[in-house]
């Protein structure tokens, strides 16, 4: 689909032997760049306590909106400046990476568990089960995610865990859709029939035979949904109805700096760029994985 596939396809075609997985990964630049960036942000998040020059919650009202080092008046004491409450921006950004990654990961796990279970059951059993699951998917798709999430979080009170639970319980639709059709394709294959004939129990067939073979699809949806969950959290927090202050969510930081953006543009530009970079890296990794797993990517 993408140019990365096409180029790897043509190179692969001129080779005598089919390349192995590692070489295919190496040749797929999207995967390398995407996962490289993602790893960098992950390391930022993990090592935030050691990397952060200051306490991200410490307010210093005498040092408000200090610009980053490349601006006039910037200092290396606060490399990326301070926010309107005098908190060190770099420290807040590093801790903010934890929130985004936690949201992306936790929502993907919760919604992935719900959606995969529903999709696999519908795809494997078909008939009435499929009808019920398909109906649930259609109903879920009809409801505007952001509006329902906003209303629910507002009613339950915004906190990190409420946001994670609400998004986790809302975003299973794509998992269910993809897992359903992937399972339908695998269901009638010989090795599934062999396992059934050997007397394997249904859970065993589903977990032992079907799941490993639909896993590539699952991995791709995980990346898509993690990215989308991170964007949703940022939007909810931006609107003041997600993660609550003083937590350093990137979306919330943009919201807090909004009224200062005319004079201190970097206050919104830095967290905004980081957020875009994170989503970009996850999408790139997901796109690359899709190409890697698709038959023409193996050429």
């Amino acid at each position, binding site marked *: *689909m*993408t*140019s990365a596939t*096409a*180029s790897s396809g043509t190179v692969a075609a001129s080779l005598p032997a089919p390349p192995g997985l590692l070489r295919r990964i190496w040749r797929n630049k999207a995967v390398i760049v995407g996962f490289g960036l993602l790893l960098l942000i992950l390391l930022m998040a993990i090592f935030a306590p050691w990397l952060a020059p200051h306490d991200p919650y410490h307010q210093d009202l005498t040092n408000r909106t200090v610009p980053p080092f490349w601006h006039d008046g910037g200092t290396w004491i606060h490399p990326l400046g301070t926010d309107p409450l005098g908190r060190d921006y770099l420290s807040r950004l590093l801790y903010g990476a934890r929130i985004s990654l936690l949201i992306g990961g936790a929502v993907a796990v919760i919604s992935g568990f719900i959606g995969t279970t529903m999709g696999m059951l519908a795809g494997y059993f078909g008939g009435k089960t499929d009808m019920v699951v398909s*109906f649930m998917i*259609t*109903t879920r*798709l*009809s*409801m*505007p*995610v*952001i*509006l*329902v999430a*906003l*209303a*629910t979080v*507002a*009613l*339950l009170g915004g906190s990190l865990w409420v946001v994670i639970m609400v998004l986790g319980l809302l975003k299973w639709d794509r998992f269910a859709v993809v897992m359903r059709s992937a399972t339908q394709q695998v269901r009638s294959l010989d090795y599934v029939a062999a396992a059934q004939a050997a007397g394997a129990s249904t859970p065993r067939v589903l977990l032992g035979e079907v799941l490993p073979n639909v896993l590539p699809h699952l991995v791709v949806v995980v990346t898509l949904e993690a990215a989308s969950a991170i*964007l949703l959290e*940022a*939007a909810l927090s*931006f*609107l*003041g*109805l997600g993660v609550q202050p003083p937590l350093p969510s990137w*979306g919330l930081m*943009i919201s807090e700096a*909004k009224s200062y*953006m*005319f004079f201190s*543009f970097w206050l*919104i530009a830095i967290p*905004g760029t980081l*957020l*875009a*970079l994170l*989503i*970009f890296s996850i*999408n*790139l990794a997901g*796109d690359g994985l899709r190409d890697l797993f698709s038959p023409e990517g193996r050429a």
Partner: protein
Amino acid sequence: MLVYILKRLGLALLVALAVSIIAFLLLRLSGDPAIAIAGEGAQEADIALIRTTYGFDRPLPVQYVDWLGKSLRGDFGDSIYFKVPAASLIFDKLQTTLLLGFLALAFALAISVPLGVLAAIYRNSWLDRLCLAIAVIGQALPNFFFALLLIMLFSITLRWLPVSGSGSWAHFVMPTIDLGYYAAPAFMRLIRAGMIEVLDADYIRTARAKGLPTSTVVFKHALRNAVVPVVALAAVQLGYLLGGSVVVETIFALDGLGYLAYQSITYKDFPVMQTIVLLLSVIYVVLTLASDIVNAWLDPRIRVA
């Protein structure tokens, strides 16, 4: 065809019913709505009065049937905050949001159709890669951040457009771009993939062999067939755009349904919130129903399946 439409219509009605139950139950999540309406520090007697006035003391199924019955007759209750019927409040703003939704959809198609077609014709060229890069970057940019960037550029630096409000057409420019750009990459990929498939088909070779000019082949023969899946996506995307209007309208203070939704959520205005969730869901159900019927009419294979 008639059987297919009836079946599809029945499903749509069932989905709408399920959505109404969820929209109703959703707002009971916070526990007792009477406490929320009374506000903090209210007396027990006041809460009890509110409970009986709004009928919150009755069993949930009774409340639901009562609410559904009234909703079907166009009575969505009164806004707790604005003190006017929710229905009149909402239908006032719906026009603005529908206009914004269609403008954003038109904007998304205006970028994605030419780019998708070009990317398919010159596939794997620098142009194709540029289109892909635009798509990937577009999908990574959070729309609320993009909105602020637009304000910085068009309102602060160039002073061309007003920051917020909804008085004139100029107020719609930035919201349209902000809402529409996010939908464009999906269309572009679909059109590119569709065009690539169609351009390789035999009838295109025939058309070329007949000596027809390239533009006729591309636009009259190829695009027409590549556009079929776009109809379905357009319906789905319009639904998403209406939902996404919450963020965009709030940032630009555009006085539509999305902004009203945001206000009703912050003021805990249950009747308005409930009605907007229900209305947007029903619009989505109708849109997908319409696109399914259009597709079945365009492509007879769908009807019999």
